[in-house]
């Protein structure tokens, strides 16, 4: 308990730094936010363009797809906000020996990596996701209440954990490869497929994003539970939670063994 309090106190210091940064560098912050906002806007515009040509995509209507799209942004945004520093492990920290300083401190290594940075750009994704969810709710595309609200929150958190696990797993390869940025980037890009119904893809891709790097369980599958009454929450959000726990376990294990194999770098 005392340990947890200590970690929480430390995290608070970094959160305070984050707000200080936002207040002090308004221009930087707003530009970053704008950039991500525009990327999202382009993604939605793309959906509209597609639907101008075809009335329905694998049985899905445009408002439903917009819900899925918005739904996908939130776990991505949560992960992006809290664990962005993992990217630097993949690209820099191992190869140039900066990981040393984490090893020198009496704290959990994973916690040290993620607590150092909160990524303000993520607020763009969270904002777009929230707006699209609100729009969908007011359109009546989805109706949620009671247990569904709880399931929505659980699914978002589990989705974020899946994102984090994928990042952590591929970043940990750097302990052996020195730089694993390109591999991580490729894996992370697969998440883009999960913004749309997986039925539209070829079998191979569908298999990969469902069972190998399970991004389908981050967005499309849980979102379909809210859209179609016949879909069971167990086969979607239930499996998502199991994947989150197992996936994080594997990723953390690889990270742990990686820190044992860490070779630092010469001066």
């Amino acid at each position, binding site marked *: 308990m005392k340990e947890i309090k*200590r970690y929480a*106190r*430390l995290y608070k*210091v*970094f959160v305070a*730094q984050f707000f200080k940064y936002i207040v002090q560098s308004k221009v930087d912050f707003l530009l970053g936010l704008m950039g991500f906002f525009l990327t999202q806007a382009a993604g939605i515009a793309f959906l509209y363009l597609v639907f101008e040509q075809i009335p329905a995509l694998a049985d899905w209507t445009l408002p439903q797809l917009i819900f899925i799209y918005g739904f996908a942004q939130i776990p991505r945004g949560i992960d992006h906000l809290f664990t962005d520093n993992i990217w630097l492990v993949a690209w820099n920290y191992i190869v140039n*020996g*900066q990981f*040393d*300083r984490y*090893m*020198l*401190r*009496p*704290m*959990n290594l994973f916690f040290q990596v993620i607590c*150092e940075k909160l990524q303000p750009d993520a607020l763009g994704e969270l904002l777009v996701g929230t707006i699209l969810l609100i729009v969908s709710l007011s359109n009546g595309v989805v109706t949620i209440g009671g247990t569904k609200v709880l399931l929505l929150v659980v699914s978002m958190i589990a989705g974020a954990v899946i994102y984090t696990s994928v990042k952590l797993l591929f970043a940990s390869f750097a302990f052996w490869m020195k730089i694993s940025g390109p591999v991580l980037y490729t894996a992370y890009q697969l998440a883009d497929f999960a913004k749309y119904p997986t039925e539209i893809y070829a079998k191979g891709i569908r298999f990969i994003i469902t069972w190998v790097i399970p991004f389908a369980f981050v967005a499309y599958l849980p979102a379909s539970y809210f859209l179609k009454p016949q879909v069971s929450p167990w086969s979607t959000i239930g499996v998502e939670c199991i994947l989150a726990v197992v996936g994080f376990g594997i990723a953390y294990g690889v990270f742990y063994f990686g820190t*044992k194999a*860490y*070779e*630092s770098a*010469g*001066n």
Partner: protein
Amino acid sequence: MEIEVRNVSKEFVSPKKYPGLKGAVKGLFSNEKVRKMAVEDISFSIEQGEIVGYIGSNGAGKSTTIKMLTGILEPTRGECLVHGINPSKERKKNAQNIGVVFGQRTQLWWDLPLSESFTILKEIYNVSDDEYKAQMKFLNQVLELEEFFTRPVRNLSLGQRMRADLGAALLHNPKVLYLDEPTIGLDLVVKDNIRKAIREINEKYRTTVVLTTHDIEDIEELCSRIIIIDDGRKIYDGSLAELKEKYGVTRKVTMEVKNIKEALQVDLSSLLKVPKEAYQITAEMGTNSVEIAFDKHCLGISEVIAQYMQHTEVRDIQIQETELSEIVKVIYRHGMEQENKQEEGMVS
């Protein structure tokens, strides 16, 4: 015993690389490995409160040893104990006991004001408010952090940054302090201040200090004991005085004389009845001075001077002890020669 190192070796294994593009393709399909022994079978122990200089040429294995003692690297063989804790097995527990400064790389948060770095470190090391206040007061006295305490770390000069890093490593009052080239790139005044600070901390808290450096003055001013390693192996462990006694046998006397020709006629070998090889004389005509280098076990310094005073008019005398840097050079060369001999032996 504060630090125990028992038969520690560290081996790095990396895939074999071949030159050129062809080589890169070849490397993809070959499974050959290159093994490099960075540290080989090193043992030593250090008592609490000692300041030990750990020296060696570049790539000799100094940093690797320090990294094993701090828990960054796991030894391939052997075991280290720091304050009774195995650093690679109980990294967190060990980290609470040690402070580390890497001269070439800061441990501080680059973009944050120094004051924030200290706030963060206070939480990381679980330092209570009272301890924090007391320790900050002491650190301010010896390192004068106040003058740049609110500035971001990236705006500090190298000297300020080093003081800040040293302060940061000492905030939790560690039992053992590792300093990896703490004075590299600093000017003389700052070097002096850093050394003074290290001494004061050692005296006040009996902190054990392990110091790697290329700066011989660091060693001479701080360390009572030195360990020299070369090519991963320990080649000397003992006091500084002993080292000088053992290897610093050459003495040099430089005398400025009135008449250099007269001075050169002084024949030490017949006057003192020693072989000619025991000394070496070089004359400098421009400054009218002669330099006599001799083995101090064969000749006494007073004898040499007395002979010259008798036979010629001496205006000025300078006596030089061999500098540590020269001794270290001799030892390195010695080590290398031994190795060459071994290799030749293997070939034949």
